[in-house]
């Protein structure tokens, strides 16, 4: 059997850790090959080796039967290998076309021929059904569109082997559907794809084969048609994974968070939270379901003090905390797992230890009279790393060196550990493996059972349905319906999120 890519016995080490140990991956022409593994298993590392960003210590790479030495991404490009990273590399102020030709500009009479490039881009976009406007500015288009620009970039450079590193983690359910269609189209045009994802459903749906790695070691490759989600999960984690959440009915008591007639404007002065009312009681998990861009981010920012509320009030345990500074909000008992872990959640150049005390460094026992106590800080970090299974060589490792999922686990550990009266969890399990998701969900339920209030924001209806005790549907900056998960369906939620009125009268509180 001829493979387009064959990575044989790859080994890649980082200080204190073997990220890839003797991994073999074979990609057939025209297949979608999933790469599955826990957070920190070494998937991104393996793909960065293939794309020439890292040099392996051992092993060989064969492309279309020829042994190659991929010293840098340019070599990968020449071999027809393209990579769509999860964090895009696009110039905000440039148009789609300008971004695509950047570093590879077609010239006519010594001048960059943007017109011709735009035509080419439009043609490729049409061929693969990407529907990207070549003249739109990056800053004006959605995340999903930006990802397509990244795909276009690789295609424009003639890639026929595409690597997708967790492409669906940043997308909304609708965008995921569209991406899957695009991937199928790419395959039908003769491309081959390696897909990294933590979502087993997606693997079952689109991929032909799946290679599983666990803690840097290759476990095996299976035909997706001959397996199922449970088997994949246990191959990856090394134990049975429980997909349903164990929880008793909630016993909510007094109101912890009380939001009334809240109005919050976005950067363009548009009131994206527009007269919102919402309450979360102690001992319950309220999930906010909604399409991205209906005011979720601004709502969280207003509660946590990162954005000013225009009018209305936010009360925490009866105390008005509207427009308080973030530190005061935190000290009054709010914890926040932010949506964007690189922007808000972590100081990437700080060690994991320093990141673990981001909100508490100035308090005892982490400091005394303004002097930091590093040994207590690091001890704290060690215990959190252990409890939350954050895979890192040590607590001194800079946060930047951790795998994406493990960075997320570190933030979650920090926020849950403070056991705030109100925990705001925005997309807490984005980029986490199934085992970690199971663990985080059980932690959220544990907080609830301790009598804390939890506000969960997620674009994944499955997560909302599984974890919440009540679901608040957000639409155009208002809560338009409140439903119980056991009394609704994903279909009904979908309709409500699109602005439809609820059929059963009298239920919208």
């Amino acid at each position: 059997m001829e493979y387009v890519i064959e990575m044989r016995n790859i080994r890649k080490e980082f200080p204190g850790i073997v990220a890839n140990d003797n991994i073999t991956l074979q990609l057939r022409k025209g297949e979608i090959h999933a790469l599955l593994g826990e957070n920190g298993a070494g998937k991104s590392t393996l793909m960065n080796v293939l794309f020439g960003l890292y040099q392996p210590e051992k092993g060989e790479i064969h492309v279309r039967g020829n042994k190659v030495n991929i010293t840098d991404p340019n070599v990968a490009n020449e071999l027809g290998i393209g990579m769509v990273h999860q964090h895009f590399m696009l110039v905000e102020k440039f148009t789609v076309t300008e971004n695509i030709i950047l570093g590879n500009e077609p010239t006519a009479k010594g001048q960059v021929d943007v017109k011709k490039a735009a035509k080419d881009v439009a043609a490729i976009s049409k061929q693969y059904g990407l529907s990207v406007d070549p003249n739109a500015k990056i800053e004006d288009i959605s995340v999903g569109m930006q990802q397509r620009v990244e795909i276009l970039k690789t295609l424009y450079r003639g890639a026929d082997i595409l690597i997708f590193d967790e492409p669906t983690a940043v997308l909304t359910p609708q965008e995921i559907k569209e991406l899957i269609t695009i991937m199928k189209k790419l395959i039908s045009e003769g491309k081959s794809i390696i897909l990294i994802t933590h979502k087993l459903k997606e693997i079952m749906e689109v991929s032909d084969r799946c290679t599983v790695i666990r803690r840097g070691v290759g476990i095996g490759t299976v035909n997706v048609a001959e397996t199922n989600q449970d088997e994949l999960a246990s191959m990856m984690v090394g134990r049975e994974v429980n997909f349903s959440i164990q929880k008793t009915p909630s016993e909510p008591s007094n109101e912890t968070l009380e939001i009334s007639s809240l109005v919050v404007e976005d950067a363009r002065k548009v009131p994206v939270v527009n007269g919102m009312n919402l309450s979360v009681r102690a001992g319950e998990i309220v999930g906010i379901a909604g399409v991205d861009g209906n005011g979720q981010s601004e709502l969280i920012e207003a509660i946590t003090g990162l954005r000013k509320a225009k009018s209305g009030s936010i009360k925490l345990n009866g105390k008005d905390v509207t427009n308080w500074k973030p530190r005061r909000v935190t000290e009054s008992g709010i914890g926040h797992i932010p949506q964007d872990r690189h922007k808000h959640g972590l100081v990437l150049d700080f060690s994991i230890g320093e990141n673990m005390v981001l909100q508490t460094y100035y308090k005892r026992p982490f400091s005394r009279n303004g002097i930091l106590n590093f040994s207590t800080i690091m001890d704290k970090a060690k215990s959190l790393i252990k409890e939350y299974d954050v895979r890192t060589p040590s607590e001194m490792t800079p946060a930047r060196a951790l795998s994406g999922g493990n960075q997320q686990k570190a933030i979650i550990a920090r926020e849950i550990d403070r056991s705030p009266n109100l925990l705001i969890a925005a997309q807490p399990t984005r980029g986490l493996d199934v085992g970690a998701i199971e663990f985080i969900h059980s932690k959220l339920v544990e907080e609830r059972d301790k009598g804390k209030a939890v506000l969960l924001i997620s674009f994944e209806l499955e997560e909302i349905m599984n974890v919440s005790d009540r679901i608040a549907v957000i639409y155009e900056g208002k809560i338009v319906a409140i439903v119980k998960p056991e009394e609704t369906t994903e279909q009904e939620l979908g309709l409500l999120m699109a602005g439809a009125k609820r059929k059963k009268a009298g239920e919208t509180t």
Partner: protein
Amino acid sequence: MKLLKGKWASITVPLLSVALGLLVGGIIMLVSGYNPIVAYAALFNGIFSNTYVLGETVRQMTPLILSGLAVAFAFRTGLFNIGVEGQLLVGWLASVYVGLQFEGLSPIVHIPLAIIAAALAGAIWAFVPGFLKAKYQVHEVITTIMMNYVALHVVNAIIRTYLLAPGERTDQINASASLQSPFLESITDFSRLHYGFVVAIIGAIIMWFLLWKTTTGYELRSVGFNKYASEYAGINVQRNIVLSMVISGAFAGIAGAMEGLGTYGYMTVMADFTGVGFDGIAVALLGANGALGVVLASALFGGLKIGALNMQSVAQVPTQLVEIVIAMIIFFVASSYLIHWISNRVSKRGKI
């Protein structure tokens, strides 16, 4: 390439840059008809051969360390303090002014008082750009450069109007405020070595301690790395920007006091900038913005400048050549950081 990236980068990059800088300097000497071996021998003799030049090197280092610390400190919070020169000038004047007052005070009181005055003056001078940056997002590079010119002319005007003594300068400060030391001078063959180097070393220790051991340092570094995460964590970003500039300016002001209380004991009407503040940028860069690095880089630059004098008299190579060597070293350090930065960006792309 590996050595230029890993945890050794902050040592290997400067060392390699120094070697390359000397090499390029040698080539330029060859091309211009000098013998680089003779010249470099004279240069190194000029740094180490006797106690006089050693004393002069340490004296030269003293303000350089402090101005390097000023630049490095601001940089750790993500700010470019190009205004060290101006802060140094106002610090110099403040120290001389206090040195001229209070006749009959004990040195134990008078010297710290003059140094504190210098620190305060530098801090106030740096407060303005810090405040404008924090409050109105005015870029500190522009305002600090402007403040340099304001400092130069204001200082000159004050000397001319209030403190003028014969010779376009102020009077000599009172002995009780002076850092000069007949003892240090005598053991170094009457160089101008003074007690200022003790102040500079204490300054380096303070910077290290403040940055790495205190909650204030934690906040400053956090703001420097990621202001969004800092804001999320409840750190007052604006306050820390101002604080960072103020502390940086205090270091710069003390650098001025080293000239005012140590080397000269007075201040002249300045025709132009001293250059020490700008050299601080190079020192911070070569010293990788660390306290120890700044001290070592100051030793190198101070040594090169003093050694250049001997090189000129023995090998007839103009002192400007050392300026070229220093410029080349900075060039190599800066470009390696650039390479580093680019490779970082690229590998960041690979991260999820």
